């Protein structure tokens, strides 16, 4: 496994390559050495043969000379003597060759001496023939034969020695090189194995490369598609080579066919809106220095003259080869831009109308209240000081004016409260709801005392709320119950609280959060028909004539507003003459 892992590395391939080269060098060396030895040895053989040949020739020259001498002795024809006269030169030549080729110099002088002896004996025989000394001749001939035998023996022994040397060398050579074929075989085998391993690795690498290439082309295609769907394009700028590449969609964004013009800086700048050109060039030059910059917006003029809004972002990267490349994407944000413009316009309108509303609030709280307050004060003074001077009708009118003015005051106060519960700033703080309930009870304490009302409440939790609003909610719910109580029956209000899961509450919509506090206000008042349960929360909606029950029809609308501000829900349940139950859901978190 380790080896397989090692093979995955590019270094392995290099090492294998080096080893293969070394093997080839090794084989070459061995072969060279072997071949040169082989050639040495064959030279050796040739030399031995040459030596033997020359020795043979030497012998045959002597024999020729002997034959010539014998021919002359028998015929006394001197023409037979020619081989004899030539013999010394030929023999000398042969001996010097042998001397040159053979290393056994020891035998050469002996041989030379024997041959000189023989030649002298032959010369004496010729001489004895001329003088007809037969007996002496015979003796000389015998001596010649003996010398000849000695020469033969010498030559034979020399030849034999030569053969012997040859065979020793042969054996030595054989000994040295008997291992060579195995060595070469093994080396070639190792070389082969290494080559096979290299081949496997290379082919595996090639496969990997192919796979990677495939993935790359798929990724490329998907990024092309992403660019088309996402309405953006991309570009690359190899800064040092000043080489640009624009994606197909970059061209499309400019309203051109993909790759329809050469990708370079000037061609791209042609499309930038003249007013934004300086800005874009400035940002691009800063990108080269700062590596990364926030996105920047600019306008372009498309091929067909249409002006579009683009957002660009670029990043300087340095690749493995150390080249600096500025990568960038461009997206067409014209639609976003238009929507943003519209939103801004709407926001401005909203702000305007909000300000108008605030101004209205002020008018309502101050300017409307002031004359009303004075009317009421004058009426109160009239009532206190001048009632006795008025007729009964006058007094009746006065009372009606007082009631109408009171009602107007209530309306203004409630309206103000309603618009205040609409306020945008909402200061949530963790508050003890029991304290808020106590404050609420305090607010309506005169009515509680007047009607002998009983309020029984469970312990309420602490909750993150807008305190004054929740207090308002409690006040409104309690005063609502007190207002719609039965005549001559002391009002009773039961306040209960429990934690609940939204899933268990059928009234809650599916969009509700998980957990809520459910706070119920149940009374023993006049109740209402269930069909009006929804209507009572609508602004200015009243179920009763204002002569029967005072009220502006704003209180419960405020309640709903407050509960909505807390992301909660409020529901009403009524039964005529039995009572009403208001259920408030406030989220736990």
């Amino acid at each position: 496994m380790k080896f397989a892992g090692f093979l995955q590395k590019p270094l392995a391939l290099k090492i294998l390559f080096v080893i293969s080269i070394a093997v080839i060098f090794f084989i070459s060396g061995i072969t060279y050495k072997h071949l040169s030895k082989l050639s040495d040895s064959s030279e050796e053989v040739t030399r031995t043969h040459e030596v033997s040949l020359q020795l043979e020739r030497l012998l045959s020259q002597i024999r020729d000379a002997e034959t010539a001498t014998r021919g002359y002795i028998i015929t006394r024809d001197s023409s037979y003597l020619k081989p004899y006269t030539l013999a010394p030169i030929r023999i000398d030549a042969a001996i010097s060759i042998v001397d040159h080729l053979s290393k056994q110099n020891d035998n050469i002088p002996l041989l030379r001496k024997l041959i000189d002896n023989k030649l002298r004996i032959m010369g004496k025989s010729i001489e004895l023939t001329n003088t007809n000394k037969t007996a002496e001749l015979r003796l000389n001939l015998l001596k010649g034969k003996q010398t000849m035998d000695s020469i033969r023996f010498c030559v034979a022994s020399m030849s034999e020695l030569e053969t012997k040397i040859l065979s020793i060398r042969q054996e030595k050579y054989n000994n040295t090189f008997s291992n060579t074929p195995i060595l070469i075989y093994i080396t070639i085998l190792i070389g082969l194995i290494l080559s096979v391993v290299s081949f496997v690795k290379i082919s595996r690498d090639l496969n990997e490369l192919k796979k990677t290439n495939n993935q790359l082309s798929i990724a490329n295609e998907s990024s092309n598609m992403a660019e088309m769907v996402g309405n953006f394009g991309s570009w690359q700028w190899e800064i040092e080579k000043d080489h640009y590449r624009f994606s197909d969609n970059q061209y499309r964004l400019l309203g051109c066919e993909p790759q329809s013009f050469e990708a370079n800086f000037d061609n791209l700048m042609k499309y930038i809106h003249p007013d934004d050109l300086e800005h874009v060039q400035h940002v691009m030059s800063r990108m080269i220095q700062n590596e990364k910059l926030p996105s920047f917006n600019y306008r372009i003029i498309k091929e067909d003259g249409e002006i579009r809004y683009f957002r660009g972002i670029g990043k300087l990267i340095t690749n493995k080869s150390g080249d600096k490349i500025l990568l960038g994407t461009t997206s067409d944000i014209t639609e976003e831009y238009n929507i943003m413009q519209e939103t801004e316009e709407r926001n401005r309108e909203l702000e305007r109308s909000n300000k108008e509303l605030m101004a209205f609030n002020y008018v309502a709280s101050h300017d409307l209240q002031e004359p009303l307050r004075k009317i009421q004060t004058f009426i109160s003074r009239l009532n206190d000081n001048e009632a006795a001077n008025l007729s009964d009708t006058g007094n009746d009118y006065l009372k009606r004016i007082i009631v109408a003015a009171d009602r107007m005051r209530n309306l203004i106060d409630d309206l103000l409260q309603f618009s205040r519960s609409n306020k945008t700033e909402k200061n949530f703080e963790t508050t003890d709801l029991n304290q808020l309930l106590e404050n609420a009870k305090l607010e309506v304490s005169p009515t509680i005392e007047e009607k002998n009302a009983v309020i029984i409440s469970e312990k309420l939790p602490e909750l993150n709320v807008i305190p004054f609003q929740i207090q308002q909610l409690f006040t409104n719910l309690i005063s609502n119950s007190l207002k719609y109580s039965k005549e001559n029956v002391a009002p009773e209000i039961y306040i209960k609280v429990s934690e609940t899961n939204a899933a268990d509450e059928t009234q809650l919509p599916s969009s509700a959060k998980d957990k809520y506090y459910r706070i119920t206000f149940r009374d023993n008042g006049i109740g209402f028909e269930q069909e009006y349960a929804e209507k009572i929360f609508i602004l200015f909606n009243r179920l009763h004539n204002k002569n029967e029950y005072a009220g502006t029809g704003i209180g419960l609308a405020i309640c709903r507003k407050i509960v909505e501000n807390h992301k909660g829900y409020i529901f009403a349940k009524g039964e005529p003459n039995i009572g009403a139950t208001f259920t408030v859901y406030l989220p736990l978190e």
Partner: protein
Amino acid sequence: MNKEYIHIILADDDEDDRLFFTDAFSELKISTKVSTFNDGVELMNYLNDSESVLPNILFLDLNMPKKNGIECLHEIKSNSRFDDIAIAIYSTSSSEEDIEETFVLGANIYIKKPSDFASLKKILSDVISINWQYHTSGLNKDNFLLRL
């Protein structure tokens, strides 16, 4: 407050309100001396005159021409000569912003102008019988607004 009478000043641009105010005090039968000013400039001219007798209690309307109540409050609180004057804001508005701002600026009590004469009398009689030293030391945002 150990003088024979309590010196009271009202700065209010509204003629009717000045009338209610002086009428209420005359009906209250407490020994008071009530002076009224029509706007903030008149008021400050009086107060800044070193010969003027400084009031025990100053009732300050907020919404006045030329110089409004908030500006007057600023000036009064930045002059130590006026440290002994109890300042009661006397306004039609009961908006949180006005109450908050005047409290922070150092007014002593906030009175929302009532809408009947009897209430007005009660409020004014309550206010002048307050022990200001005691009231001021325990003053907080909850008891700043006078409730009846």
